[in-house]
């Protein structure tokens, strides 16, 4: 049972991490003042969308984070789409149509990404299965009934017990 507690603790650890890091990175805006929309609601939506889109130049930053020219152009494009009346999904789809799923920092759940999403769970399940199996076998081995001593063995034990220790 202890091993399961240990695994549970490991799994829970990342959940506690944000609480352990009070020094959250301060917001260094890549966003330039001239890009910001007048409508705060639209601007807030644009910020949220930008955080989900990969900058294709830096590839490990969102366009909201990146100072690359392309990131700026894409930020402005997202804002233009929203101003033109696009929903959030439509604005994202507009970019995905041109750059593919790679532009999404959160990969979508579909056939080609099945291994990505299901894989870790499957491997974890196999691991749990293996550990359980191993545990059960060991317990069976420990708990297996011990055969009683045969008459011959009994006689030898008695003889040993009867021996006087050497002085």
């Amino acid at each position, binding site marked *: 049972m202890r091993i399961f507690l240990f695994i549970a603790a490991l799994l829970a650890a990342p959940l506690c991490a944000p609480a352990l890091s009070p020094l959250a990175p301060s917001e260094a805006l890549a966003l330039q003042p001239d890009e910001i929309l007048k409508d705060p609601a639209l601007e807030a939506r644009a910020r949220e969308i930008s955080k989900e889109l990969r900058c*294709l130049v830096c590839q490990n930053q969102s366009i909201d984070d990146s100072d690359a*020219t392309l990131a700026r*152009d*894409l930020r402005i*494009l997202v804002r233009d789409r929203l101003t033109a009346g696009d929903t959030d999904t439509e604005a994202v789809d507009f970019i995905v*149509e*041109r*750059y*593919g799923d*790679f532009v999404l920092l959160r990969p979508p759940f579909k056939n080609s990404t099945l291994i990505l999403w299901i894989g870790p769970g499957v491997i974890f399940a196999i691991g749990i299965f293996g550990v359980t199996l191993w545990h059960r076998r060991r317990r069976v081995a420990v708990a297996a009934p011990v055969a009683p001593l045969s008459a011959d063995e009994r006689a030898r034990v008695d003889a040993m017990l009867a021996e006087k220790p050497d002085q």
Partner: protein
Amino acid sequence: MLRPLTLIPVAVFAVLAVVFAVYLWQVGPGGKDISKIPSAMINKPAPQFDLKPIANLPARLKIPGLKTADLKGGVSLVNVWASWCPPCRIEHPVLMNLAQQGVTIYGINYKDKPEDATRFLDQLGNPFKKVGVDNTGRTAIDWGVYGYPETFVVDASGHIRYRHVGQIYPHQLESLILPLLKQAAQPVTDSSKAGSAGAGGS
């Protein structure tokens, strides 16, 4: 005593080791550049655009602007370039070579100053049949461009068949570009689809 179950971890390790080795080998020196992203535009029609010619072109450079309709009617290369982009400058002789072989090359001049673009073409020669100016970068985004230069192979129906990120090296002319142009002259087949999406590298 070796039971079959004991061999499972060893087998898993062996398989993983082979997979990792193959991937490492691919990205090793002279190998595949994994920062290159497959284009989402393959086998789609080229985006709609209508771009003006480079402003104040001298009479010796008569290059009209470029629009989507121009791409129909024959296989062509569409090259996204700028005078400020060093690899574009290095790549230019390759484009000149292609143009001399009779390949139709169109240009999209990305966020450039007209006088700089003119000087670039004056110095290095003009391989382009038409060049459209993209000052806002919107047309480049419509093509899914993220680095410069980028070169697209467009077939006679105006569909994008291949995207090359970065400069075309001289040795890639024979090994990559010319075969692709030949392939683009054929109608789309399943094998060409598979080839165009994954091919590339340097």
